[in-house]
């Protein structure tokens, strides 16, 4: 077991964004988290990444208790994450962005630069190497985020809607990239709003609604689950425009 979340809850005041969510991920898996916006999947995700400390519950990664650990400790332990709204370092070039990630395991400048260049090559950003991140479009910045995380040599990668808002061609490329990373032995947990992405990538899916895990299992089973359909089509509709937190 690489990652295990046990009865994780997160409350903001009296409001429970996540309530007693369980998740266990084996080395080499791709697991999807789905649910309508505001369902709690992003909050749960932030708990896994160390950005939010759960109110209750326990998170264990590779045998270490990470429940209260800082985001930087998560990175050191081998958990990398992307952001829903890309948080690239806008004034730094693509190479410099990726180097910040590469420095985690390679303190020396030349080593970090070499690794960053390889990672940029792998993620298909080579032609933009020396451009500032702000000149990239959203798809490019999402790709850059993945490259940056990849340079930290994670064992587990948490992707937060990294494939949302892409055109069909871009989506195909992005799925290819995620597969490539997966083949290199990186375990992946992916939050996604778009069902098709989850269906093609994930072997196992957890569906969230109103802070609860309402279904889990194979993607084709989960999408047929009544509670999931209800969450997406029924109650999902009026919360559709709200930003998930």
């Amino acid at each position: 077991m690489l990652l295990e979340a046990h009865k994780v809850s997160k409350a903001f005041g009296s409001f429970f964004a996540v309530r007693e969510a369980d998740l266990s991920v084996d080395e080499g898996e791709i697991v999807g988290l789905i649910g309508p916006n505001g369902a709690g999947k992003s909050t749960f995700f932030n708990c896994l990444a160390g950005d939010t400390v759960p109110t209750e519950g326990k998170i264990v990664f590779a045998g270490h208790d990470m429940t209260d650990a800082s985001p930087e400790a998560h990175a050191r332990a081998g958990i990398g994450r992307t952001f829903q709204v890309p948080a690239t370092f806008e004034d730094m070039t693509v190479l410099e962005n990726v180097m910040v990630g590469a420095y985690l395991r390679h303190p020396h400048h030349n080593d970090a630069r070499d690794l960053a260049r390889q990672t940029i090559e792998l993620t298909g950003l080579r032609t933009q190497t020396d451009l500032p991140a702000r000149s990239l479009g959203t798809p490019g910045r999402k790709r850059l985020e993945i490259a940056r995380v990849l340079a930290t040599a994670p064992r587990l990668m948490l992707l937060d809607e990294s494939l949302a808002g892409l055109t069909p061609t871009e989506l195909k490329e992005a799925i290819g990239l995620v597969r490539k990373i997966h083949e290199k032995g990186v375990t992946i947990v992916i939050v996604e709003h778009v069902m098709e992405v989850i269906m093609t990538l994930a072997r196992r899916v957890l569906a969230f609604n109103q802070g609860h895990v309402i279904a889990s299992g194979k993607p084709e089973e989960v999408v047929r689950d009544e509670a999931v359909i209800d969450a997406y089509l029924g109650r999902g509709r009026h919360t559709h425009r709200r930003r998930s937190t």
Partner: protein
Amino acid sequence: MKIPAVTPTTLLAAGLLIYPLIFSGPFYLDIGVTFLLAAISASAWNIVGGYAGQVSVGHAMFFGLGAYAPLLCYTLFQWAPIAGIPFGIVFSIALAVLIGIPTFRLTGHYFSMATIAVAELIRIYFGTWDLVGAAIGLQGPATARGWWDLTFRSELPYYYIFLAVLAVLLHLTFLIEHRRFGYYLRAIKAGERAARSLGVPVQQIKIKALILSAVFTSLAGSLYSVKTGFIDPESGFGILVSVQMVIIAALGGAGKLYGPFVGALILIPLQTATNTWFGGGGTGLTFILYGGIIVLIARYEPGGLFELWERIAPRGWRRKNAS
């Protein structure tokens, strides 16, 4: 790794080396010395305020501690003033840690507020503290007892001492820029949350940056008081001291190696000119001018003149000077 543009740097160094030989009059020499000191302090501020984006508006606290230490050592023990420099540095480091640890956990505004409050606190306190001469301040040796007193009749020796310190500081900043520490500083400025997610120990890096910045600001203060042989609360801890560092760095380009240098190159002659034109009443107008410049930078050109140049300079020029 980008190779520094060798020619402009060497030209610059050569120009600074021969400046006193060409403009040897005391008036121009004084401008040169003032310029170098301003460039040193602003470059020191730049490490934490520019690169790491943690905007201190009370850096006078480090400058003042550095300035008082040599003259206090002279007054109390009749030591050579320079013997006091390490004490100024030690106290500045302690103060940096005292302020950095609690405020760096919070958003950037807390740090700014804390710096200005602490600088004011020390200024007022020194004005009442008899050991440091209260409101009157301290004086250095009137005549040199030996070379070690660094009391010269001409400003020329100071010019070259200051130039050497500036060269060391800029070289150090250049090295930082091209190492992990520098990358981490810029990452923190660009987005703390993202930086942490990539394993950057944000708190630790910020404190290191503040300490480094405080050390050089303190040194700048020491150089100032050793040269002038006089310090009082206003010239050590006054708000003008902090403002000058911020405005010079921001005008040239905060977070750019030569930003503070360029800022000082523009501001110091400007300041000398306003002071000369308006006589003794010029300080008030200087402040109004400073305030206006700061507001304009914030509103229109937060990247300073360097970024403005990058945007408007013709392409060929830009490529040649991309360093």
